[in-house]
């Protein structure tokens, strides 16, 4: 069953064409990775799918309504003067969740001890985890994660990876963008390589790596990307 899709989507900002003829499908219950360097158009795709932007051409589809979508975007959007728990309580009230579920979400990301700490005083990694707790609080069917582990230490990133896999296992569809090829290889069931607004390759990480003879001791999506674009990550 298709959860998220785009068909021939084009998008420009003035004279700057950001997306060209983008087509892909995400199946329910998989982790779908949108890979590419900064400026490739990944965030624009998430913004279109979450209805923050409209398309110039083509069609896009998300199988669920906004109340069943979880978001972790470029900006954390946290209320910096409120505590971690109070930030979640705002969304607990909006979604009509119980306090028990809120505390569980906080515990799931390892922030129970920081529940009463104001967001201003949280580290970057803790804020990131709090944003993830907010995104999964209402058990969304589709989760959009924009660079979920960027600028995080490996340990925190690993914790977030585990949580993402758990969510996939519980039936959620995860749509994530990243420029970290290693992360995509380890996490994603399907990936799309995006370069300058165009999809240059898609499939499972294994299929893609095999297609380009990039499986040595481990799969190496980064070398596939370099082969396809003639350069490294920007």
């Amino acid at each position, binding site marked *: 069953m298709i959860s998220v899709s785009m068909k021939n989507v084009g998008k420009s900002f003035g004279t700057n064409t950001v997306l060209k003829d983008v087509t892909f499908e995400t199946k329910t219950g998989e982790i779908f990775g949108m890979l590419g360097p900064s400026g490739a158009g990944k965030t624009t795709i998430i913004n279109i799918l*979450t209805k*923050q932007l409209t398309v110039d051409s083509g069609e896009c589809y998300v199988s669920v309504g*906004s*109340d069943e*979508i979880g*978001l972790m*975007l470029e*900006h*954390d*959007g*946290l*209320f*910096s*003067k*409120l505590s971690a728990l*109070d930030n979640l*309580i*705002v*969304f607990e*009230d*909006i*979604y*009509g969740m119980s306090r028990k579920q809120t505390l569980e979400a906080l515990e799931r990301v390892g922030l129970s001890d920081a529940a009463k700490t104001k967001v201003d005083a949280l580290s970057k990694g803790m804020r990131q985890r709090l944003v993830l707790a*907010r995104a999964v609080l209402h058990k969304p069917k589709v989760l959009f994660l924009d660079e979920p582990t960027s600028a995080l230490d490996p340990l925190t990133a690993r914790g977030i990876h585990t949580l993402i896999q758990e969510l996939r296992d519980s039936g959620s569809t995860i749509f994530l963008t990243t420029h970290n090829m290693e992360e995509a290889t380890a996490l994603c069931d399907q990936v799309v390589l995006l370069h300058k607004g165009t999809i240059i390759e898609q499939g499972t990480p294994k299929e893609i790596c095999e297609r380009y003879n990039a499986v040595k001791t481990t799969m190496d999506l980064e070398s596939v990307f370099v082969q396809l674009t003639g350069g490294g990550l920007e």
Partner: protein
Amino acid sequence: MRSLKAVFKKQFKGTVQNPEILIQFIIFPLIAFLMNLMMVTDFEGIPQDIADMLTANMPNMVTMQATIFAGMGLITVMSGIVAEDIEKKSLRFLTMAGVKPPAYLLGVSGVIFVVSFFTSAAFGLIGEFSGLDFWIFTGAMMSGVAGSIVLGATIGILSGGHQSASGLALPVALVLGFGPMMAQFNDTLARILHPFYTQQLNVVANYLTMGGADTPLWHAFAIMWANVAVLGILFAIVYAKKGLKG
């Protein structure tokens, strides 16, 4: 309704737990109280006619500070809250979670209105208004508060960022907040400021403390509510053009 309650609770916590905002509701009545204490009221040894003249011309600290609170403090508070929620993209997450813009604005305004009621009542007590006078004063204050909330929200949406909100709000707030105080000493300025709600708030408060208003009180209230209506239209225009885009 659930969204409105959520925003109201969020804003209430954000107001009472944030000293930068909370101070705005405390500092003005506190200054009025302290300045009232410091005012010379003992005219012993001074001829009665001179003492009467001094008393009559003595600026009333409560009405001054109350006008500054309603006209200046609240505009900067409201514009700052809205602009910060837009700038930090918090509002984007609220709207994407299903909070409609009117629910957000009502929730935030509701908290500011309620907290301002207590500040206004504190001014009323410090000013020793009692009975009907207390409620007329509080009513005038809340009319001013309503005007400043609408104006502050408009500035917050217009600016879209905390820093530019301060830049926009400050001159407007200075004119509306300090103007009526200056007008107590300058008739020309009083005439210029006559159509503005903070000047009328000052007129009502001064009438209650000193008496002698040139126009009936309902006239002042009518001007204040006309202001609120005009500001409401201005808000609607700005909102229609810019929305609450984070």
